[in-house]
């Protein structure tokens, strides 16, 4: 089967983000970049699916030329080829249009991808819509928040499992299909040294779709206000148990 994974280059987690002086972007001087955690699981899942069912994994990322770093990382995890979609607009509509157009170009050459995997929402912008928009414009079924992917016995359907407030839901979708996945889907592998060296030489092609901007325009970013209140220290060690229970009673927990 042919699987496409759309990944996003995002700041590696861990540090407090600081902003550029004009507040329009984050200060990237000290930042390392990574694949968003949801998308890293998507890459892992794609590699596993292809290992089981045969086929090819293509990774695609829209953004500045630097996304090549993440494409190569995904390839070191086992993806076979990379597609760099050079794109400066960052709003969710433009991103979805660029992805859809790039997918259209790729599919017009080599036929459709059976499955397109995306992250449920990006770790930085968190717009919660790019996968859905791509699916709508390609006219394919899409399920979000997915934490389990299984290809049906016939190879014509995919079963997508997700958690909801009430429990677990499993959806069946005919292929070709799209799914937006979440961390927890699997435990992504660490790339092997051989994988890294292979990825260095793997093919990455570049597409430059021209797409209009969407209707959501970022004006500036700012830090959320810090809580300024003092922490009340209830005590030290086991001696604090009484104060803790007092608090639980006060909150109506006991």
């Amino acid at each position, binding site marked *: 089967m042919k699987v496409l994974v759309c990944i996003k280059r995002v*700041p*590696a*987690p*861990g*540090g*407090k*983000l*600081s902003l550029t002086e004009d507040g329009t972007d984050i200060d990237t*001087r*000290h*930042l*390392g*970049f990574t694949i968003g955690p949801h998308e890293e699981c998507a890459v892992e899942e794609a590699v596993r699916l292809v290992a089981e069912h045969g086929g090819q994994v293509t990774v695609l990322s829209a953004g500045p030329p630097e996304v090549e*770093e993440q494409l*190569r990382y995904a390839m070191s995890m086992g993806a076979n080829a990379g597609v760099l979609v050079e794109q400066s607009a960052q709003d969710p509509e433009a991103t979805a249009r660029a992805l859809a157009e790039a997918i259209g170009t790729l599919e017009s050459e080599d036929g459709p991808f059976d499955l397109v995997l995306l992250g449920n929402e990006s770790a930085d912008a968190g717009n919660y819509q790019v996968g859905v928009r791509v699916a709508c414009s390609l006219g394919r079924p899409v399920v979000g928040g997915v934490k389990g992917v299984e290809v049906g016995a016939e190879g014509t359907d995919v079963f997508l499992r997700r958690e909801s407030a009430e429990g677990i839901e499993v959806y069946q979708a005919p292929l070709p299909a799209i799914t937006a996945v979440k961390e927890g889907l699997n435990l992504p*592998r*660490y*790339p*092997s*040294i*051989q*994988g*890294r*060296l292979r990825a*260095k030489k793997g093919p990455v092609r570049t597409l430059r779709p021209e797409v209009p901007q969407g209707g959501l325009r970022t004006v500036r970013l700012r830090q959320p206000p810090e809580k300024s209140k003092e922490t009340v220290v209830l005590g030290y060690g086991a001696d604090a148990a009484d104060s803790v229970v007092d608090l639980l009673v006060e909150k109506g927990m006991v």
Partner: protein
Amino acid sequence: MNTLPDSADVVVIGAGIAGNSVAHHLAQAGWHNIVLLDKGPLPDPGGSTGHASNFIFPVDHSKEITAITVDSMHQYEKLGMLTTSGGIEVARTEERVEELKRRMASAKAWGIHSELISPERVAELVPFVDTSIVKLGFWTPSAAVVDPLQSGALMREQAQGLGALTVSANTEVSGIDTSGGRISKVRTDRGDIDTDTVVVACGVWSPRIARMAGARIPLVPVVHQLIDVGPIPELAETHSEIGYPIVRDMDPLMYERQSGADLEVGSYAHRAILHEPDDIPSYEAAQLSPTQLPFTQEDFDPQMEDALELFPGILNTPGAGIRHSINGLLSLTPDGGPVLGETPEVKGLWSAASVWIKEGPGVGKVLADWMTHGSTEVDMHGADIARFYPNQRTTTHVRARADEGFNKIYGIVHPNEQWESNRGQRLSPFHPREVELGARFFEVGGWERPHWYESNRALLEEYADRVDDRPHEWDARWWSPIINAEHLALRERVGVIDLTAFAQFDVSGPGALDYLQRMALAQVDKPVGKSVYTPILDHNGGFRSDLTIIRLDTDSFRIIAGGSDGPRDKKWFTDHLPADGSVVFTDVTSAVCTIGLWGPRARDVLSAVTEDDVSAEAFPFGTARYIDVDGVPTLALKISYVGDLGWELHAPFDQGLKLWDTLFEAGREHGIVPAGIGVYGTTGRLEKGYRLMGAELESEYNPVEAGLALPKVKSPDFVGKEPYLRARERGPDTTLCTLTVDECTDSNGTRRYPQAHSPILTTTGERIVDSRARSSYVTSAGSAPSLGEYLLMGYLPAPYAAEGTGLLVEYMGEQYPVTVVRAGRTPLFDPDDERMKA
């Protein structure tokens, strides 16, 4: 949440391995009220200690680094934080095979047990290595890994147990106040502390903290890349942090060590990636820690291929991935050494920076000794922060040398290897002429000094029968037979040597004589116009310096000291200036240029260009006076470090070129030649048995042992007098000797020239160690063209310190017979000094 005291005896900034160790040893040394701060949390405040690879190979070519490392290992062991794994350095190339033999000699010289082992033995110790690419191994069974964070915690606990230490994490220093050039206060975001002593143990942040007080700590944060690959079942099976020896794959400048189920692969091969101390992210903004920066994959790709070559099996284990990869920051100084000691700019501001994990505990001990007693047991000339001239503390210089030096960390560095970057910092006025003469420049203190002159190549024919070439490339590297030819020309005719790199100080005022009497071992109270050569001792009676003092007037003196230790000498002298202002100390180094004019024809040349009387009667040896040399007012000093008739001519810097041209013009008919430091520092000096600071003269040795004790002890008190008197009474535990190499042909039939630091062994190949555990090794080595010998110097205890004793010297894996030809100071060449007194 914790409260800081209002005042402290000392504030140690930085709770990495260096700061914890300094605080610990200060407490042991009896300091009270020590405050240790760090802006990060404990136990890992986010500096280099938190991500170091934590292994220790004890052998280093440097004696003091090896000594500090061995002491550190003992300390880690006492804390229960040392796991001995053994370690192997492997050679893939013939050049590295030679280097491992050289390391073997260093191991022997400094008393570390190591062995050269075959590839098969390497495979027995570390079965995963592909030995088909290994030519030789250097096996050190005592190599170990340590836990520096836990060690630091234990050190803090012990100091707290003594009631001497307050620890405050998450405390950022915002300023350091000084008053009258001395530390007065440390400002922090949790309150201010009055103190007169601060230790900067801030690793990569040290320059930033020192600058708050107005001092420079010359280091730059550089990236060291490392990755962890795992899980690897063969390693996991050991159920230990480290169950196999550490491997240093020296040729690709890498190491591989087990860390639990992972193999940690680190590299010093990638391009030098320099950072700015001010640009390191804060603890909050850092993704892993401030000194663990995002990994830059492309820099590491070639190293991965190298690692795969040596460990093809386990690094290809299915399921083993790169689980951790960082660009770790460490500190690099212009010469790669640590920066320890009090900063020359600010009294009471001490540096404990650029310290590797392997040195941390030992550095704490050394620094505590230094702060408590004013001196150290181990000679610190290679580690003292005061060793840098101001030009060597500039950002430009530090960055240039760190950039160049990074790949030398695991490199094969010839002892005389010259730097390529940021050259031409300090030029004597003679420099244009020297360039015209094809000078090959060596650098000291930023000065460009001719080591020999290509224009003298013709002399090789003239002295063809007395000048050897060196057939082995290593022996001939950074060397030329022209040096020996220049030597012979000087001895036969007359030579000119550029000595502008001397550090020169003027000392004057009503207290000048008393002050210098207190500093110098020799009697300084000489008639005006007389000079005296004197050792300068430290408080333990070991050598701090040796230099010449000229009495220019009743209350006015000139100090002339070697260029390489100039800044340390300056600090030593200014530290001891009387507080009453009775002495004015002026550094005139950059105002004065110096020519050495020596050789049997020197007087002919000088008398031709001056109307002053320079005859033997009018200008006896050891005197100094101002003369006019063709209009250049020149301080002429009748003295010689090469043992021939002549003068040091000290002239105003701006008239130097004229002096040079005048001498050469007048010298033409006498066959004058320019001669380099190769003659001055090595061949001429060794023939005369003169000692060199930093080689023979170190703080571990005293004047009695070095043969520099004087017949009479002057009555005024001087620094180191008590221990000096005791040493005189006790006699030498070891004696500085001169040896000749009897036979120097190696097993391939190639003539070899053993270099300094080679161990001196008994005829049965045993190490020679004196009663104070000091081993015998070659302190200086070089040709003696006038004697037709190759000479070595080294300290030997009785009974070896006797003329005629046969011994061995180990050099590059082979042992050569040598003979003691002098025990003590008497020169081999012209033993009665008739030539220079002629």
